[in-house]
Structures are given as C-alpha cells and as structure tokens.
C-alpha cells in the first residue's frame, strides 16, 4: 500500500533499472508508451499511485490484448479470403476477446455483427467517458532509416580495378583515407593525428581535412535531428507530481549550451551530403581559411627557447580550440584571452628558424583537427 508513488519516482531516476528489463527485445519504446497510456487511463479511473510491478503487468496485458485482437481480426480476414481486414473482422476479433466476459447477444449464433453487443458497449463507453489525451505527442515509430549507400563504380564513373569486379559494386574507398574508418569517431584521435602529420609531410593534407569535415557534418546533423525529435516530444509539460507524465529529458538538458552547427564549415560537403542543405550559406570559407589568422600569428611568432613555446602550445589546446571553431569566428570575441595571446605573440621579435615555424604550423593544424573531431568536447566548453 505505502510503496506506490515513491517507488515509481525512484525507478524513473535510475535509468539502469529500465535497462535490465529486456522484454520485447527492442520494443522498449512502445512498451514505455503503453505504460504511460495505461497509467493515464488508471489515473482517470481514480487511482493515485502504482506499484511498478502492477503497472508493468497491466501494460503487458494491454499489449497482448492489442496483439490478440489484431491476430484474431487478421485470422478472420484470412478465413474469408482477404488479406486486408475490415470492420467486421475487427468486430469479430473483439467478440472473440470479449467472449470470456460475455456480452449482450453472445448466445445467439447468427447475430448480426453490425449490432453486436461489443460494439454497443464500446459506443456507450465512448459516449460516457471524457476523452483523456495522451500526455506526449509521439512520433511515428518504428523509424526506418534510409540507408546511404556508397557510390558504385558506375556512379563514380570509374573503371573497376579488375575484370572480375562488376561495375555495380560499391567503389573502393580512397587508399589515402581508407584507414580512417568513420566508425571510430572521436576515440582514435591520437593515431589519426600522427597519420595526418605523415600525410602533411607528403603534401597530401587536404584529403583528411575534407574527410573529417564530412564526419563532423554527419555528427552534428545527427545530433540536431535528435534534438528536433526531442523538442516535439517534450513540448507538452505534464501535470506535476506524476513521473509518468513528466516530459522526457531533452538531450540538450544534459549539456550547458547547444552549439549550432557552424554553417561555414559545411560548404565543401554539401554536394555529397544532401541532408545539410539547410545549412548552406553563400560564401564558402574552408576550415583552414578560418584558422588562417591563428596560423599566421604562429608563423610570425618567435621565441627564445623552443621548448617553452611548444610546451605553451600543448598546454593551450582548449584555448586554441575556442579560437578555431566557435568563439572567434562565429560568436565574436567574447573571451579576452585569445586576442591577448595573439598580440603577445605578435609583439615578440622574430628569431625563429624555418623548420620551427613549420613545426608549429603543423601543430596548430593538428590541434585544429582534434578539435574538429571532437565536437563533444567543444560543446562541453
């Protein structure tokens, strides 16, 4: 008796307890919705609280009820030689489900389905009860994702490397960035950075930059799409005190601020990736151009001791990150630290060696890369 409402509230606060129940195997979303709906109906009946187990059981029974009605209606449609069910199949199915209870006119063998007792009961139910609208707007589910396939040899206009490979097969990835699998995202930063440096030595640095821009675009876009769904879901604020009616947590609630995808980075990739069309702006500025001032500043820099300077740049990773992506270019110079360092660097006399400059430039680009690869960290900043 006493362990009703408090229990459900505590359950909601621990996401781990939800995860341990894998009933339907990927059906958690529908079951959660069923639970909310059942809870709402019970609340309108006069209940004030639940045992979590009772709610689970009842929603499970309800799901089975729907499944059984559907199965029965489908079966009756098949019996009469149809694949699509009609109203009479559904009524027959409902009669089947109601035969345990009994309904008016059930005893007559050849009663008309149109005037079935089940339908009359439902009719009364509809007329009597006040409709309670479901607490949240729900998107259509299950979501079927459109798969984006790699272009085939035909689409790319390339010749397959061997006669045994038909042209309709997907083309091989570029040998340069084939080792950069998009699956390893944001984790394998270090090896890739090393690789990038090697490629810079060979003068082929442009490829991975473009590639990581694509990755970033897809990352950010996935994120923003998720946020959109969550927004629509959370639009209704629910009655207080009932954890089942509380609006679902938005993704951005966990984070300090949502970062709008910087439109200027995306121009190069727009052609390949139709989904980012919304973000297109007129003048294209590549990421490297964006950071040109920073790199220039470093070029002009010099220092008394090499080690000091390198150390400094290593330590300043997060700051440079700001300079790169968000603060300096898009949101204005809201942090005084960045111009300060730039000025500081500029006022220093010029002593630097050639290779040292190169080294710093490379380092700056490496930092840039890392920050582009880890948009999550940017968001946290």
């Amino acid at each position, binding site marked *: 008796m006493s362990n009703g409402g408090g229990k459900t509230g505590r359950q909601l606060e621990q996401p781990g307890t939800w995860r341990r129940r894998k009933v339907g195997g990927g059906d958690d979303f529908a079951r959660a919705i069923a639970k909310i709906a059942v809870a709402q109906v019970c609340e309108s009946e006069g209940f004030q*609280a639940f045992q979590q187990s009772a709610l689970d059981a009842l929603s499970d029974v309800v799901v089975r009820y729907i499944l059984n009605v559907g199965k029965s209606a489908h079966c009756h449609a098949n019996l009469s030689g149809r694949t699509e069910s009609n109203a009479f199949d559904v009524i027959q199915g409902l009669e089947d489900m109601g035969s345990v209870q009994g309904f008016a006119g059930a005893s007559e063998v050849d009663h008309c389905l149109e005037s079935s007792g089940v339908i009359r009961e439902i009719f009364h139910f509809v007329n009597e009860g006040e409709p309670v609208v*479901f607490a949240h707007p729900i998107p259509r589910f299950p979501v079927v994702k459109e798969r984006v396939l790699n272009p085939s040899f035909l689409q790319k206009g390339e010749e397959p490397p061997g006669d045994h490979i038909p042209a309709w097969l997907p083309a091989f990835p570029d040998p340069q960035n084939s080792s950069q699998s998009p699956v390893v995202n944001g984790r394998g930063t270090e090896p890739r950075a090393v690789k990038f440096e090697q490629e810079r030595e060979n003068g082929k640095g442009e490829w991975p930059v473009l590639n990581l821009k694509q990755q970033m675009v897809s990352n950010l876009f996935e994120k923003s799409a998720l946020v959109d769904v969550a927004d629509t879901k959370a639009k209704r604020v629910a009655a207080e005190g009932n954890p089942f009616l509380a609006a679902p947590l938005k993704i951005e609630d966990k984070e300090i601020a949502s970062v709008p995808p910087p439109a200027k980075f995306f121009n190069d990739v727009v052609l390949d990736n139709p989904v980012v069309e919304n973000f297109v702006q007129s003048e294209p500025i590549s990421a490297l151009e964006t950071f040109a001032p920073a790199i220039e500043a470093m070029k002009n820099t010099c220092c008394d001791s090499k080690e000091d300077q390198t150390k400094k740049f290593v330590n300043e990773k997060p700051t440079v990150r700001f300079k790169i992506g968000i603060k300096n270019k898009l949101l204005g110079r809201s942090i005084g630290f960045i111009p300060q360092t730039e000025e500081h660097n500029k006022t220093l006399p010029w002593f630097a060696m050639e290779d040292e400059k190169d080294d710093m430039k490379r380092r700056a680009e490496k930092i840039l890369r890392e920050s582009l690869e880890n948009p999550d960290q940017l968001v946290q900043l």
Partner: protein
Amino acid sequence: MNQNPQSSEGRGDDDAALSDFLASLMDYTPTIPDELVEHYLAKSGFQCPDVRLTRLVAVATQKFVAEVAGDALQHCKARQATIPKDKRDKQQKDKRLVLTMEDLSKALREYGVNLRHQEYFADSPSTGMDPATREE
C-alpha cells in the same frame, strides 16, 4: 458475415449506426495512442489502411484497461474498507488508492488472465509482508 434473421430495414439501420459510430471515432481521441495500436496491430499481421479501425481497436483497448482498472479500484477500496477501525486511524496518512499487484491479479482473473505475484520478487524490503503488519 452472418445471415440476419431481421428484416432488411433493420439491417440498414444497423449499418447506418455502425458507420456513424465509426465516423464519430474520428473525432474521439483515445488515450491509447494510434501509433502504439498501429505498431502492435502491424506486428500481429493485421493490415488495414483505415484509421477508423485502428481507432476502434484503441477505444476497445482503452475500455478494457478502464474496466480492469475499475475492478481493481473496487478491490482496493473493499480491502481498505475491511481494515478494522483502530488500525484505520494509523493508515489514514497513506490512504491513497494504489494499484497493487494483489488487486490487479484479482481483477484480471475475471478477464481470463491468471496473474500471480512473482514468488521472490521484492519491490522493497517490506513487500510480501502482510499489509496489516507492515506498519510495525
């Protein structure tokens, strides 16, 4: 469909009543969301593009839930009423109507669902104790 012993007039009336009722379902928003019902109907093999039938199933499901919940509520109230007077004062503070497994299984038994509390399932350390002795 079945043979109807009634006259064709009566059948026409029923026909009109049924289609009226189905049409009226379009204005009625059941608590069970259409998407949920559609999802599970599709899972069971049911195919029909008609939204009214989905609504019909949704309303029927809602009626089922409401009936079960109503029965459980009656059980709950009856159980609370049988508590002796002297103990009821103590319970007054948490005299909330809580849907419990006990009432639910009693209510569902009438609908052909045999539901038992899990044997060693414990919501809390006090679960499984006699409700009357739980206060101590």
